Structures are given as structure tokens and as C-alpha cells.
């Protein structure tokens, strides 16, 4: 045999050796000891936590020559055959490759036959989540009542993809992620056996990289072992894995806190040039800010930070005052967004750069903005209070404060005071129009073309020009509705007549446009020249 990776070399062969899954091992062992062996198991759990391993040990335990026993001997022919993967009665099927209904039919054909020399025929179907629906359904009957000599063990990382009918026929075991200590302990065991010299802190780093999966940790460890030099040091591993040192992160942090966006750039460039990964930088920064946010909310003595050293805690405490909670949320949101976009971007560095500038700019809080607006509002009302006393400046100032639209309305009110005769104030008209628009928007549009002519008592004359016959008819048709709307808003009962009047006298409901104010873009001019057009309505 050539070299075997650690994960294969140190694959556990006994229930006791499987790390972190004692809750499952105990149930299985008791089941075997009391001769209550189920015919179908489902092992689910994350990658690299021991599902396949446990399945093989179970197969060995039931088939060991020394009876079904919770302690397989690993010496008899059955055990050895299973360990070497050449037993005729333990069939390890790759569910992802043999996923069709035909493969399952073959399996069902073979299930009938008695095992050749062992007590049980064990089918281990790994990656079972990849079976097709048809295949799953074809398996149902066999899985429910298989012949007495058959045990099925299904293993998967994605139990949610398995039909409920399959789940209900299996004894289900959930494998949990391993804790940091469990992984480290196992690594120490391997270090002992392989006679490797390694710093304890370096080993912790490797264990952390596993993130709950032993196989992940071992894959990393494999690379660490083949590093040069007798003793593996922490800094070698940091370099090997491209882990960002804390100094870099805290420098970033300081630059962001002090809003030095220009320096953030050059520093980022420097880091990328020295070979660090931008994805990792983003993740680490996010984690850092998240810790800070947690420290701010829960305090750095909370359970969240049990794993942190005192120095780190002190750092958090010192820095949490530099940012407000809102800003931290803003930063984390930005970084998360950038992370998503970086995944598929051709140039992730650019995405990160943009995000970093955004978050290293001076941050203004919403509360502050609201306060400022409130302040401004106060000033405005003060000013308008003054103006009523001071008639001279009245118009000037009011025009400055109010928008363009109101200015024009004021003006038209002024000019056409007689016709409007203040039957309805402007606000009332607006209300009326709103009411009409609610019922039938087209009528509202027709009305804006009208000008109010003479009024006699409760009779109103709406004037239209000759070209506007279309609008006139529209208004006439809906006059009942208009009258009702007016009554609803103002409480006045009125009558409407529509007439054609060429002279554009009367109070317009449409604010007059100041023609000279419309800026004509050179292109618009060109278009007008070509098509001999005129400007009807200018939209900015």
C-alpha cells in the first residue's frame, strides 16, 4: 500500500474510537447487546463526523464471528474482510452513482439471497440523498419488511432531501458536529502515534480550521505535517493556511474607525500583493465587527466570548466605544453584501474596495439627520411667523421657502381673484381633485384643462377652448360624479355647465407654466427642428 492520508489511516474500527458520537454508539451497542437490531438505519450529519465509519463498525459488530457483539474483535475473517472492504456480505453502495431505479431493482433481486457465510447481509448506501424519487419509492417495500438476514444502513449529509416515507421506516441517528476540544484531543492522539513535533498553539489552530468536521481538520493537518522543519510552529501554519494575522485586522479596524479611506486602499493593495485572499479578508473583517457588535450589546464577559483570550477581550472592550451600534450594523450589512457579490465576481478585489471605501467614510447617523431636519423645520416656522408681522418681506421670503409649484399657485390666485372668488381655496380644489382621481382618474385629468368662468350662486361655468372639446365632453359625461365629489369635500351643493370659450379667461386649475423657465436641451431642439414640433409639457 502506498501512503494513506490520516483520515483513512486513523479510521476508527471500534465503537469506542468514534469521537464525539457517544450518544449514537451507546444506543447501537445496547441494541446489539440486547439482540434488538433494527433492519434499517439512517445516519445523517455534516461532512467528516463519522457516518460511514459508524456504518462499517456496525456491519462488523453484527457479523463478527464472536456473535453479534458490541465489541467486534477485528481479528476474525469477517471483521478483517469488512475492514479491507472485500466482504461479500457487506455491500457499500455509492448512492450518488447508482441512483436510478434499475440499480435499486438489482438490489432488490439480490436481497432475497442468504448471506454467504456471515450472519447478516449489510447494505450500506452512502450519499443516499442522490437517489431519484423513483428509486426511493422502489425501495420502500423492501425497506419496510426486508428478509431477516438483511440490514440497511443509509448515510447522508442532506437528510431533508429524503422522502418522509423512507425516514419513517428507518431508525434515525443524527451525528453532531465535533467540538473544538474533541478534535484537538484526537489530533493530539495522532501526533503521539506519528511522532510529530508540533506546538500546542499550532495544533489548536489546525483544530479550529476543521470547524466541527474531523476530516477537514485532518486534511489541513496533513499539509502541516509535510511542512519542512522538525517542529511545526504556529507561524508556519499561519503562513501555510494564509490566515490573516491579528495585526492586519486591527490596522484595518483603526483605519476604518478614523475614516482614512485613502489609506484603507493602499493597505488593501499591500495585503493582496503579499498574497492574502480577499475573500478571507472580508470574512475575517465581518467576524471582527460582529464580535464588536456582540460585545457592545451583550458585554465582553458574556458566554459568546468564552473562547477568547483576555487580551482579545480587552481589545474588544477598548474598541467598542469607537462605533455606534447603527454604524456597526451598517458595516456588517455592507460586508455581507460584498461577500455575496464577491463570490461570483471576476474581480472580487474591486468589490471589496468599493465596500471598504463606503464604510470608511464619515458616518452620519439617522438620528442626527432627523434632529437636523427638526431643527430646520423649527427655523422655518419661526421665519414664517415673523413674516406675517412684516408685510414688506412677506412675499419674497415665502416664495423662497415654498416650492416652485406653490409659488405659481399663489401667483394665479392673485391674478384671478375675481373669477375664483374664493369659492374654493386651493387646498380644497386639491382635495376635490384627489377625491375625483380616486374614483376615476381620467375625469381628474379632464378637469385640469378647465377654467372656471363666471359663477352665479351655486352655478359654475367651466370654460374650455375649441381644441379641448374632448375634455369638455368628458367632464359633461361625468358631471354628476364631480358634483358629488365637490359636495363630499366641501359640503356645498353646486351645478356645473360647460361651455366653449376661445378667450382663455378664467381661473385655471392647472398651474401655469413659465415658458421661459423651460430649458431646451440642444438635442430636444434638434428633434423639434426635424419634426417641426413644439413643447407641450416639460418634464425635468
Amino acid at each position, binding site marked *: 500500500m502506498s501512503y494513506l*492520508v490520516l483520515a483513512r489511516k486513523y479510521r476508527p474500527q471500534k465503537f469506542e474510537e468514534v469521537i464525539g458520537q457517544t450518544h449514537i454508539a451507546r444506543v447501537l451497542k445496547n441494541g446489539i447487546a440486547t439482540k434488538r437490531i433494527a433492519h434499517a438505519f439512517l445516519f445523517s450529519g455534516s*461532512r467528516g463526523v463519522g457516518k460511514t465509519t459508524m456504518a462499517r463498525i456496525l456491519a462488523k459488530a453484527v457479523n463478527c464471528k464472536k456473535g453479534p457483539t458490541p465489541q467486534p474483535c477485528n481479528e476474525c475473517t469477517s471483521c478483517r474482510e469488512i475492514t479491507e472492504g472485500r466482504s461479500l456480505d457487506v455491500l457499500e453502495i455509492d448512492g450518488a*452513482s447508482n441512483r436510478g431505479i434499475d440499480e435499486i431493482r438489482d438490489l432488490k433481486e439480490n436481497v432475497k439471497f442468504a448471506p454467504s457465510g456471515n450472519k447478516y447481509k449489510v447494505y450500506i448506501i452512502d450519499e443516499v440523498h442522490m437517489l431519484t424519487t423513483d428509486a426511493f419509492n422502489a425501495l420502500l417495500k423492501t425497506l419496510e419488511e426486508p428478509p431477516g438476514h438483511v440490514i440497511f444502513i443509509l448515510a447522508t*449529509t442532506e437528510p431533508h432531501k429524503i422522502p418522509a416515507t423512507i425516514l419513517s421506516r428507518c431508525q434515525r441517528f443524527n451525528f453532531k458536529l465535533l467540538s473544538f476540544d474533541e478534535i484537538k484531543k484526537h489530533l493530539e492522539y495522532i501526533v503521539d502515534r506519528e511522532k510529530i513535533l508540533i506546538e500546542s498553539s499550532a495544533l489548536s489552530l489546525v483544530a479550529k480550521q476543521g470547524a466541527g*468536521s474531523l*476530516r477537514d481538520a485532518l*486534511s489541513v493537518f496533513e*499539509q502541516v505535517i509535510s511542512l519542512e522543519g522538525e517542529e511545526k510552529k504556529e507561524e508556519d501554519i499561519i503562513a501555510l493556511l494564509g490566515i490573516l494575522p491579528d495585526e492586519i485586522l486591527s490596522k484595518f479596524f483603526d483605519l476604518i474607525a478614523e475614516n482614512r479611506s485613502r489609506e484603507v486602499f493602499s493597505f488593501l493593495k499591500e495585503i493582496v500583493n*503579499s498574497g492574502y485572499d480577499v475573500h478571507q479578508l472580508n470574512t475575517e473583517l465581518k467576524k471582527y465587527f460582529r464580535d464588536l457588535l456582540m460585545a457592545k450589546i451583550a458585554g465582553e464577559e458574556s458566554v459568546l466570548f468564552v473562547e477568547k483570550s483576555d487580551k482579545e477581550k480587552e481589545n474588544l472592550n477598548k474598541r467598542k466605544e469607537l462605533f455606534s451600534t447603527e454604524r456597526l450594523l451598517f458595516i456588517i450589512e455592507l460586508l455581507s453584501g460584498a461577500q455575496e457579490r464577491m463570490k461570483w465576481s471576476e474581480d472580487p478585489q474591486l468589490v471589496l474596495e468599493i465596500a471598504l471605501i463606503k464604510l470608511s467614510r464619515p458616518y452620519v447617523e439617522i438620528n442626527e439627520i432627523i434632529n437636523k431636519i427638526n431643527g430646520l423645520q423649527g427655523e422655518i416656522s419661526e421665519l414664517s411667523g415673523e413674516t406675517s408681522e412684516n408685510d414688506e418681506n412677506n412675499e419674497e421670503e415665502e416664495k423662497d421657502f415654498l416650492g416652485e409649484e406653490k409659488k405659481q399657485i399663489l401667483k394665479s390666485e392673485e391674478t384671478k381673484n375675481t373669477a375664483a372668488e374664493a369659492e374654493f381655496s386651493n387646498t380644497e380644489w386639491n382635495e376635490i381633485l384627489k377625491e375625483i382621481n380616486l374614483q376615476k382618474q381620467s375625469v381628474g385629468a379632464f378637469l385640469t384643462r378647465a377654467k372656471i368662468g363666471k359663477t352665479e350662486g351655486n352655478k359654475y361655468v367651466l370654460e374650455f377652448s375649441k381644441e379641448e372639446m374632448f375634455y369638455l365632453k368628458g367632464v359633461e359625461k361625468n358631471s354628476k360624479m364631480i358634483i358629488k365629489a365637490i359636495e363630499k369635500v366641501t359640503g356645498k351643493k353646486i351645478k356645473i355647465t360647460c361651455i366653449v370659450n376661445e378667450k382663455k379667461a378664467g381661473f385655471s386649475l392647472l398651474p401655469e407654466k413659465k415658458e421661459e423657465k423651460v430649458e431646451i436641451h440642444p438635442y430636444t431642439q434638434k428633434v423639434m427642428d426635424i419634426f417641426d414640433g413644439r413643447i407641450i409639457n416639460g418634464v425635468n
Partner: protein
Amino acid sequence: MFFSDVLGQELPIKIIQNAIKKEKCAHAYLFVGPEGVGKKSTAFAFARLLNCKNRIAIDSKGEKHESNGDNLDLQDINIYDSCGECISCKKIKKGIHPDVSFIYPEKKDIRINQMRVLKYQAQFKPMEGRWKVYIIDKAHMMNKESANSVLKLLEEPPDKVLIILIAQNKYGILPTIISRCQVIKFNLLPSDLIIRSLKEKYNIEEKKALFFSRLSHGSIGKAFSCCEEKMDETKKKADLLISKMKKGDFISLFSESEKLSFSKEKEELKKILNIMIVFYREKMYENPTSEYIKILEVILQTKESIKRNINVGLALDEMFLNVNKIMENKKFAEII
């Protein structure tokens, strides 16, 4: 391909070399890194070295020692490399070595049938060489079925089988696959290295080399292909568009976007957008105001949408208008 041909990837090569020196070669590697930084070259150099009949050992002084295909027992061996002359090396170079296979997405992804063939072949012992090497390029393009179907093989492959997966990033790959592989990260190259090698290889002037290095942002493969294609035309076009956007010369801009949308080649368009990004990016470095950030975001957005089969002409028109608006009115940048 020799290990010495791979530029600027000292760490990944060191990891591989160490594994070979200590005879602790794992059965599955995953090379992760951006496009054009030397992943494939390293994979082939690896395959060649494993199968070479005349391994060359280079010691720390740079002296070469020949060995008969096995590791030498010298203390100060710095690096092993293939000879490049034996039958095995030559066959791998030509792509006809029976034990070294290169798998890539034949259609738009890597199908389960390709993997079935691989698994079938992997059962047999190597025919000529010592190792069977399977290099799977663009492994993130394995579809769900094919990715799941290699899991068992990746976990416990037959003896003397090495599988090298190559991917641009980890995100497209199943975590269960990653956990079975030795992950080796390939990083972007520093720009001065790219400039230096461009100048050496193509004999171009400093200014051009700098531009190409910016355009390829750390990917030497991209930089080389920039040099080989005539980029001058494209650069001129992009510069013209930039100045027109600034002026707001929409009539010619719109006719330009029409032309670009009719040409079937999206590559050209992508290059133009990349040059624009380089231009505004440099501006942003000089002066990090929201104006340039917004412009860059607009261009990035356009690039994304074009990838997703949008109406190219309309997307470009929108970009021209937005960029112009941002340039004319800096306040506008704050709002959108």
C-alpha cells in the same frame, strides 16, 4: 510544463514538493484560485513529476542531479522536477499519456457520464506510468449529480490514483468534496512580477506593461493573452467612449451601443468595459469620492447584466446616461 515555469506560486509548489519529498502524496487535491495564475500548469507539472522516468533533483545551489525516477537521498534537495525528455514527459506534453487524463466541461457543465468513465478507468492499475492522474478542470462546473457521484471515489480511491480538482473558488463546490481534498490556494500575483515578466517575454514598454498588469489584476494568464491580442484598437475605442460619456455626446454614444449590441462577440464588449473599469479605478485610487465609486458600480452592474443575457444595447445606453449624469452632477452620485 516544469514547476519552474509556474511564476509566483512559491507556497503551493512548496506544499506539493514537500509532499513528494516525504512520499506523503495525498490522493486528492483541490487547487483553488483565480483564473490564469498557474493552477493548471502546476497540476500538469505535478502529473509529470509523478510519472517522470528521469526525475531531476535541483539542490539549493541550483545544481541538477539526475535520478532514476526515484527520490534522491540528498539532504539539501530544494526541488524535484520532471526531465521533460523521457517518453512519459513527452506523452503528457502531447496529451496522449494513457494514465494522465484531463477532464473539463464538455458542454456547459461536467456531466455524470464523464465521471462514470473516470471511475471505471480508475479501477485499473496505471498502464505505463507510476500514477494515474486525473485533472478535473473547472470543477465548480460539475453538476449536482456528477459532484455527488465522485464523493466515494474521492474518499477512498484505488491505490496510485491522484485526483486534482481545479476551481476558481470554493463556493461552487460541495463542502463534502472540499473536506475530502487537500485544499491548496493559489493567489493573485503581485503587479511588479507581472510587469517584469511581460517586459521580458514580449519586450513591451513600461507604460503598456503597467496598463496590462492593471487590466489583468494579478492574473498572469490574462496579462499574456492581453499582450497577444491586439488591444490597441479596443483601448482606443474604450478611451473614446469614456471621453464621450464625459462630454455627454449621446448621439454618437447611442449609435456606438447599437453597433456593439449587434456584434455577436461579447468578448470585445467585456474588454471595453474592463478597460473602463481600469480607468475609473485609477481615478478612484487618486481621489476616493462617491462619484467614482458610483461610476464603478454602474459599470459593474452593466457587466453583470450583460452576462445574464440582457438586451445589450439598452444596458449600454443606460450605463452611458448614468455615468454622464454622475459626472455632470456630483450630488446625483450621493442620491442614487
